């Protein structure tokens, strides 16, 4: 029982991070139908920038929490600029090109960003300085740290903020309008370019927050860390129904839990016939099953011809 609880905690933390990254994919997809494969790299850049800021402030005598806050803020701003630039430079000129062209461009941007990061931060693993004094709590034989608590609660907060933004503000309304029909929205006076840029900017900001979380949770960073994370988050977005905010969150949490429980129990369930190396396969089997019964994901119903 304590093992199950521990696996649930593991999965929840992982899932919160996946969910935040998945939101970045889903926002962009929901509005212009583009899978921004460079989003994983934006997350990575977010981690790296936070790392640089934190390291350079570490000896300044500021309080660790303040340093962490500054690191987070700077990385959010940098990623916002990066997201805006990506859209402006790489995607906007291709807005009316066939669907495959921006997709390939996105993969290209992902490779470019990885290599830029490799040039700036080197090819070695970077140890993220632990700014929060890790405290380990125990309940019912399962342990978790204050960092995990912070990750899950911060993720929840950010997601709530995003839902508010999309459903209760003017820019959110413009976003929903653009998602429904960009031409009609522009006829109604919505500045499409601005709305699309905003989607990239907000998505990238979420990515930066996720990047800082990953950095302080695993305490390591690497220029290729964005690739797997991005792929998993994309899977989570598809699982939940890409283009749907609630779906991305649910998909992320679900994927995290599936992975943890899959790795933890698949061996026992199959009498050690399948081991924990089938963790990813397990996650994708669940994805396939979900898509068989709900082709547009768990929450995806209003995608229609945009899918």
């Amino acid at each position, binding site marked *: 029982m*304590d*093992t199950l609880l*521990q*696996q649930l905690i*593991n*999965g929840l*933390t*992982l899932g919160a991070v996946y969910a935040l990254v998945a939101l970045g994919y889903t926002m962009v997809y929901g509005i212009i139908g583009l899978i921004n494969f460079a989003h994983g790299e934006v997350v990575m850049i977010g981690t790296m920038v936070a790392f640089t800021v934190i390291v350079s402030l570490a000896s300044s005598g500021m309080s660790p929490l303040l340093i962490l806050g500054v690191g987070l803020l700077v990385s959010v701003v940098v990623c916002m600029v990066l997201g805006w630039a990506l859209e402006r430079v790489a995607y906007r000129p291709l807005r009316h090109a066939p669907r495959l062209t921006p997709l390939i461009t996105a993969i290209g941007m992902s490779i470019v960003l990885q290599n830029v990061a*490799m040039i700036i931060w080197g*090819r*070695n*693993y970077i*140890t993220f300085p*632990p700014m929060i004094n*890790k405290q*380990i709590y*125990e309940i019912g034989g399962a*342990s978790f*740290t204050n960092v995990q608590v912070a990750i899950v609660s911060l993720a929840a907060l950010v997601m709530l903020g995003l839902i508010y933004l999309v459903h209760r503000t003017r820019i959110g309304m413009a976003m929903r309008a653009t998602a429904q029909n960009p031409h009609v929205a522009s006829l109604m006076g919505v500045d499409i370019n601005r709305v699309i840029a905003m989607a990239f900017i907000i998505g990238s900001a979420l990515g930066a927050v996720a990047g800082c979380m990953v950095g302080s949770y*695993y*305490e*390591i960073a*690497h220029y*290729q*860390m964005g690739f*797997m994370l991005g792929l998993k988050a994309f899977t989570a977005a598809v699982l939940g129904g890409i283009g749907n905010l609630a779906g991305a969150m649910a998909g992320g949490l679900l994927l995290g839990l599936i*992975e*943890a*429980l*899959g*790795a*933890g129990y698949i*061996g026992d369930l199959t009498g050690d016939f399948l*081991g*924990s*190396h089938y*963790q990813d396969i397990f996650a994708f089997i669940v994805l396939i099953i979900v898509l068989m019964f709900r082709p547009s994901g768990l929450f995806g119903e209003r995608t229609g011809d945009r899918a």
Partner: protein
Amino acid sequence: MNHVRIPGVLVVLAASMAIIGCGKKEEPKAAAPAPAPAAAAPAPAPKPEMVVKIGHVAPLTGPIAHLGKDNENGARMAVDDANAKKVEIDGKVIKFELLGEDDQADPKTGAVVAQKLVDAKVAGVVGHLNSGTTIPASAIYNQAGLPQISPSATNPKYTQQGFNTAFRVMANDIQQGSVVGTYAVKDMGAKKVAIIDDRTAYGQGLADEVEKAAKAAGATIVAREFTNDKATDFKAILTKIKAKNPDVVFLGGMDAVGGPMLKQMKELGIKAKFTTGDGGCSPELIKLAGPASEGVICSQAGLPPEKLPNGQKFLEDFTKKYGQIQIYSPYSYDAVMVLIDAMKRANSADPVKYLPEVGKTSYDGVTGKIEFDEKGDIKNGAITVFEIKDGKLVTLKSEGGSAPAK
């Protein structure tokens, strides 16, 4: 690099042509690569120069790029040292060139770059780093008749394929696995052992050998878990292991996996001692795991640097040039030197002619005496067990290894 060097050769060529053309005994002024000490001699035309290319392959990108760069730096230093010595083969001064390739630790890419090196007509290859890339690539080198010396691929299969071109300069995983597995049971007193591997040829192979050795020494394997070489989250498998309450956890994998794994073990409150093989036995592991690396027991194929016959000097020179040694740069240094040594003895840089000499090698390298058995494995390969104390790798004991030749 090619672009820099070829003009150098052209300059010499042009210069000598000019001399012949004039028919006068003019000494070429500032013949770029000509040896300085011989400048006073009447110079019977500069000695003909020949470029010999040596290939080197290791992952220069990806999670273990730091190890790949370390290997390449070792090989590069060997090439620089050999060039400084003005090695002569068949009456020609040899200029060695290192063609460094990146295999991304990926078996498919490994085969592609292997073919690339064959096409580039290298005289020999040092590499690859990972067993998983070295084994498929070795078939390509074998077909081309190119000598290949790996400085770090420890999986036994590499030299068991019957290839006369495959060599390695450190002990293989059968030796290493048995030393670590036995050490865990006999010296650390482990009764229950949990084993994790990263599903690479290296990690899996080593983990299998450790499992055998630990069982043979009387321990039970309570868990056998798996991850991959790009993962950073191990909490799920660690939680499972925690429930089995082992005395020792062994990881067959690299430092990039071991570092975060150690931290997560601590967070989950796992008390078991952590052991790993050469892939995790690096300063990088200490950097990545921080205080969580205290008390880790790990092994390396080879002798500890302080016991290497020429280790101190190599250590100083290397550190000055490239910074801290990770694991295998002394071995890639030696691997290059072994190739050059065989070329010298055969008096040829033609793979067909000097390949037989590689097998007959008896070379005093920085890592000790290098001699190969009939399969291409090093004779008397040493294994050293280390413990991480106060953030440093401290030697516990060494097994095997030939006495350093003075």
